[in-house]
């Protein structure tokens, strides 16, 4: 009897400690986010939305991240399919290298891109010959964003294709002679959610890209100054603009997470 009382007391203590840890963690994340929102009045929001510097940065971010996401889709989905369904020598090495940007510090990514594409870089002479300069132009932003963000899509596409039920795919192969038809009518719909959530993660990552863009593309307003770069630049000269851009990015990130969570729940047809 004594023992059960003691152990139930111990359980309660553990529960209280756990709850404390969870709350601390939650506030560690939520407090800074809330602090951003507390920096601005509702009427200032309307005002800031007409700030030309903000609008320029938003426009640039939107179109570079859209192109980067599209590029990531075109490159990563077929690659993910290939990596998930084929075996070949050296696969593990290739797999690791194309996943690398996920953990690579963005500054290193920026340096690496410079050494590859800058006029004095590895491909510099070729690009010069073709009359192309990359750093300092929006195309550099797109390359930096694709480099850093595409592995997120690759990973989830690959996992999606790997977890396809082989019996389902085999059923389709027996019923239909066209591989392309099987891919588009069965493989792709089965991995649709994984690919969509990977695409959104990639887009969110591209929107937030800072380090690699700063180093490789530069910080030129209207040309390479994306939203994160604008926040960095404006926070001292025009703090409210910085706050406004931060809020937009927080809202975008939050929405993407909610959409991904909803995607995970969706089933085909309601359960009886």
């Amino acid at each position, binding site marked *: 009897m004594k023992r059960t009382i003691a152990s139930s007391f111990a359980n309660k203590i553990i529960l209280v400690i756990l709850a404390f840890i969870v709350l601390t963690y939650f506030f560690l994340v939520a407090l800074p986010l809330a602090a951003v929102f507390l920096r601005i009045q509702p009427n200032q929001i309307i005002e800031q939305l007409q700030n030309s510097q903000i609008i320029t940065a938003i426009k640039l971010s939107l179109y570079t991240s859209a192109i980067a996401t599209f590029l990531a889709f075109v490159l990563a989905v077929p690659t993910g399919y290939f990596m998930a369904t084929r075996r070949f020598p050296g696969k593990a090495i290739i797999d690791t290298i194309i996943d690398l940007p996920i953990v690579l510090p963005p500054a290193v990514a920026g340096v690496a891109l410079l050494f590859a594409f800058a006029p004095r870089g590895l491909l510099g002479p070729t690009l010069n010959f073709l009359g192309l300069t990359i750093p300092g132009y929006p195309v550099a932003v797109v390359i930096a964003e694709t480099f850093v963000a595409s592995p997120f899509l690759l990973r989830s596409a690959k996992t999606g294709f790997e977890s396809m039920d082989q019996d*389902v795919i085999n059923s389709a*192969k*027996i019923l239909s002679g066209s591989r392309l038809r099987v891919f588009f009518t069965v493989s792709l719909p089965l991995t649709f959610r994984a690919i969509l959530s990977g695409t959104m993660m990639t887009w969110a990552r591209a929107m937030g890209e800072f380090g690699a863009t700063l180093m490789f593309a530069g910080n030129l307003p209207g040309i390479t100054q994306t939203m994160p770069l604008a926040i960095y630049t404006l926070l001292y000269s025009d703090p409210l603009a910085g706050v406004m851009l931060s809020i937009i990015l927080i809202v975008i990130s939050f929405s993407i997470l909610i959409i991904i969570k909803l995607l995970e729940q969706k*089933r085909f047809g309601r359960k009886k």
Partner: protein
Amino acid sequence: MIKIDSVTKTFSDKKVIQSLSLEVKKNEILTLLGPNGCGKTTLLNMLSGLTRPDEGNIYIDDILVSGTEGTKKVYLNPSERKVGYVFQTVSLFPHMRVQDNVAYGLKSFHLRKFRLHRREVKDRTMELLDLVGLREYARFYPNQLSGGQKQRVALARSLATEPQVLFLDEPVSAVDPQLRESFRLELKNYLQKLKITVVYVTHNLSEAFIMSDRIAVMGDGSIQQIGTGAELFDKPSSGYVAKFLGVNSFKGKAVKISGAFMQIEANGTSISAPSNHNLLGKNVVATIKPENITLSKAVDLSVDGAANSVEGVVTEMVQMRSNAQVTVDVGFVLKTRIPLSTVKSLGISVGDKVYACFSACSLNVFTDDDN
């Protein structure tokens, strides 16, 4: 209908199928029966074109679908072999309604040469759903159906392309345990109605008996024996087959022939069996079905023919619904199946001394190839 000629398949150093040959007759239901991992599914996958054999030829309807013809290598894709396949797991397309699942194969006809009219696709889909009794579920999604309903849809889907051969890989295992019995009978009905060549895979003995015209017992990547259920039970051709079917088998030596009977010495026990001059003096294996053995408390020679009545000790008793499986050690192990009422009237329990009685004619004897 199907001819498999010395087919071999190795997966990373493990020989899964070893020089296997088999013929399946037109419109028969042949079951591949064997324990898990004996290569049943691999064989099915090679027949359907999902797995490529290392060696050997496979013919479906006299057409070489896999192998070499002269110096030419031939390999037809799964969709070109006119086969249907129902898988062990529910393999319906989860994102399509039942009717679209069934129509999937029909639509690929449409894309090829036949150009089925939309109306025709719809009509044939409904016909197939009628066959499996699921017309009213046409607009449901697979996850709204029960396990048995899903497998019926899978059956209808596989029949849509009018296959000449149907492969079923443990289709019953996707059904809830308590509904399996009735699903088996249902499935049997469909298959008989269809008049189609069927290769059925299972590791379940009673399922094999319910479903098939002939059973091929597989072990170690090859066919151990093939025949009707009764043939296999009466005359298992090896200790492996006997063991898998739950038939008693024991090793011994044929020592003497007197008249119509032959004496076998098995681990110190003398047994009478039908005489066979070819076996005299050889090491043999004898098999006997559990239900051909009766038990008594005293020597009982009333059984027809040369009766065996051997003394032993009861080592195990398992009660079933209407009978009991009693294991007796008579120098070798004999499993018997006797009615519960007999168990009661004899009053036997584990450790008791009993006599196992069986006629010589119920023994099936062949040479022991292991020695």
